[in-house]
């Protein structure tokens, strides 16, 4: 029974590392390429099952895409070249993290803008409430 905690520990520690192993027959020979590969497949969307990344999808196209990405890495292509190629075929939809561009600017600006607007409204409401309370207190004081 002493082996049980040890087994649990191994499983817990190993779990985050094992995502790519689960879907790929074997790791790439170059650990550096393997590391880049792991990052890429977590950043790219499975184009069939859209809420999964390539890393955790077992759709046929995901397997083919992972194989293609490994091939491109082995051929010495940069992460950017690989992403650009896939975007040219599947559109920006394949990127989990949208690019910074003027077309996408609203994606990045809008949340900040809404936060500022909300903040301004909140401050004003609080100030007004404060002013109301003050007036009431003044009124009470003047009556006595």
């Amino acid at each position: 029974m002493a082996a049980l905690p040890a087994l649990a520990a191994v499983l817990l520690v190993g779990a985050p590392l094992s995502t790519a192993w689960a879907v790929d027959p074997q790791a790439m020979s170059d650990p550096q390429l393997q590391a880049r590969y792991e990052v890429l497949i977590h950043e790219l969307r499975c184009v069939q099952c859209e809420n999964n990344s390539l890393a955790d999808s077992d759709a046929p196209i995901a397997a083919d895409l992972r194989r293609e990405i490994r091939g491109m890495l082995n051929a010495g292509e940069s992460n950017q070249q690989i992403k650009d190629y896939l975007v040219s075929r599947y559109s920006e939809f394949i990127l989990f993290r949208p690019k910074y561009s003027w077309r996408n600017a609203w994606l990045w600006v809008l949340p900040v803008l809404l936060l500022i607007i909300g903040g301004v409204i909140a401050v004003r409401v609080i100030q007004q409430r404060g002013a109301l309370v003050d007036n009431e207190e003044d009124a009470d004081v003047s009556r006595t």
Partner: protein
Amino acid sequence: MNPRFLLPLAVFVVMAVVLAVGINHSHEVGVLKSPLVGHQIPDWELPGLTDPAKSLGSRQLKGQWYVLNYWGAWCYACRVEHSTLLQVQQQGRVQIIGVDWVAGNPDENAAALDWLSRLGNPYSQVVTDRDGRTAIDLGIAQAPESLLVNPQGVIVYKEPGVITPEIWKREFLSRLPKPGAS
């Protein structure tokens, strides 16, 4: 009038517009718009299903209309589509080139041949995509998917799913030249 009373109205109008746009586009949710539509089809060449030595590619098909149909014997939706493809082939308006997508299935080749002999063969030619490289290059995401390619080699339409008789009429026939016109 205090312009503050207009604020809820303004918020309502903005929300109504955003939601209306969203609802209008809801049928496109989950449909990947291919950036390749309207552009030259990337050069492809694939070995034949029955005879791997006999390959077919975009170069040989220049000058002809064709539908490139990705399917696999592992794909249930392709079986649903199959009867429509047989009807299309009988109409004879355009040739359908079948691409058997192996997608890692060890016995796909035999299963595909068995499929065609049992269910009928709607394709003028069938090629096979073993490693999915051509699928990726053509922006294919799943099976079935079909591309309509014109004689200049431009992808004029992509159907990201099952072709039904209605879709065939609306999206494909409407883009093909009228019979006897050319």
